[in-house]
């Protein structure tokens, strides 16, 4: 699903965020990406959904080398990927329904199908009763779950989640993690960036540790 070949990324000339990352993540895997703050987790995720281009190396997603992708092909890539952003990126002037529906509107779905599908996914994340609220009136944990619903609603092949449990209480964390595991069971490949070691230890999933832009540990050293 994901292949990284000697990927390097620097924002400025002297500041290197990632250096020489090579890794392989297979279809259907659930992988944690971990490391202290500033290790390069978010940067790596951004490379995967094409928000950044690596300064060196190759990134292959689902058989497509996205380092050579023309801008016109970017939408097609992103439709295969559901991203849960660290800052959620929910639109405050739109309802929960409309926020989640965006993913499907972009795909050209009809209104009826969208409403049905959005209701279904909101029920999965336990927010169907908030369908007509605006994000501002939701708690942090609820906003997080709306962001997840938006990423999961079209059953993407690949799910990327950036600190999805950050700033959440224990109960919300459990809930978020459970939703991601469910999506994984349904067939999505899942990559979760987190600095939360406890979450990883309890999960018994594969994890890749980043430190100062290098891979220092991979629990599945294959």
């Amino acid at each position, binding site marked *: 699903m994901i292949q990284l070949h000697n990927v390097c990324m620097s924002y400025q000339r002297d500041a290197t965020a990632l250096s020489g990352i090579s890794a392989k993540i297979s*279809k*259907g895997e659930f992988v944690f990406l971990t490391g202290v703050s500033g290790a390069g987790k978010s940067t790596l995720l951004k490379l995967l*959904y094409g*928000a950044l281009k690596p300064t060196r190396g190759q990134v292959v997603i689902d058989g497509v080398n996205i380092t050579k992708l023309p*801008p*016109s092909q*970017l*939408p*097609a*890539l*992103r*439709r295969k*990927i559901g*991203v849960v*952003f660290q800052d959620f*990126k929910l*639109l405050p*002037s*739109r309802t929960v329904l409309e926020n989640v529906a*965006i*993913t499907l509107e*972009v*795909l*050209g*779905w*009809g*209104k009826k*199908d969208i409403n049905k*599908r959005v209701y279904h996914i909101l029920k999965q994340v336990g927010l169907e009763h908030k369908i007509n609220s605006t994000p501002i009136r939701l708690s942090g944990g609820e906003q997080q779950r709306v962001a997840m619903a*938006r990423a999961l609603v079209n*059953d993407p*092949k690949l799910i990327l989640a950036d600190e999805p449990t950050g700033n959440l209480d224990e109960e919300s964390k459990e809930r978020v993690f459970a939703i991601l595991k469910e999506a994984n069971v*349904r*067939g999505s490949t899942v990559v979760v960036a987190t600095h939360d070691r406890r979450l990883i230890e309890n999960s018994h999933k594969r994890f890749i540790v980043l430190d100062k832009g290098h891979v220092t540990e991979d629990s599945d050293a294959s």
Partner: protein
Amino acid sequence: MPREKAAKRPKLAREGVTGRLHYFVERAFINIRQNVLVNVLSIVTIALAFLILSLFLLVYVNLERVTASWSDRVQITAYFDRELSSGEVTDLTGKIRAIHGTLDVGYISREEAFRRFYGRLKGQESLLEGVSPEILPSSIEIRLKRDSRDSQSVATYVTRLRQFPEIKEVQYGEEWVKRFDDFMNLIRFAGALVGGFIVLAVIFIVANTIKLTIYSRKDELELMGLVGATRMFIKAPFLIEGMIQGVAGVALALLVLTGAYMAFLHNADIFSGIGIMESGLVFLPLSHLAALLFGGAALGFMGSLASLKKFIAL
């Protein structure tokens, strides 16, 4: 990767061009509803800008109408080398009428000329006692169409008149025509200059207003790109929204202008003092109204397009 969900393919709405267009228009209206305040502010700003422009146009159109009416004085008089028979006169006036630019042609007989002359003497009629009409020549008076009253056209016209062998002399207020021509050119130049500045200001104001409405939604633009929307898909509703704002702004401006016109501008009384108009102001012709509306739509579209360029560089 076998996916259970893939089997249940949802029916795609918006097949074909009209379906898509329908979706984009619907989306634009939803966007306006979700951002009422920004849109109202933007429409009011556009309306103010266009109100200034349409007021200027109203003044200009009326100024041109009044000054153009002064050119009614342009008249050409042709004198003959001898008295013509009535058959010859009919023949000649027919030929003159066929010349491009002729509005009407009138034959002034000796008697008619004498009567006019007599009328002008007022109180000193006794001077003409015993004088017969024979001392005055008969003539033909020609008025030209409005678009043929500039000095160039008049000169060309007179040259053609002189080619008739029956015509000995042609008189027209050459000096006056030239001065009037210069004056009209001055008015047109000043109008174009002031109008040009106003149009530039309007473009600047509208473009920046629309930029603000788009800027206030840059998060939305970014997100659309991140969930895989094509550029076309992101842009289209904003372009339509810009056009709606432009048309709504112009419509509002024209509504205010019409109101002001109905309330007092059409009334001749306030102008009779300056003595330039007998009939009050005329309203903008339909063609100008249509052009303003079209201009609003185009400006809204272009303003959105230019602003979007800055934000959609994904």
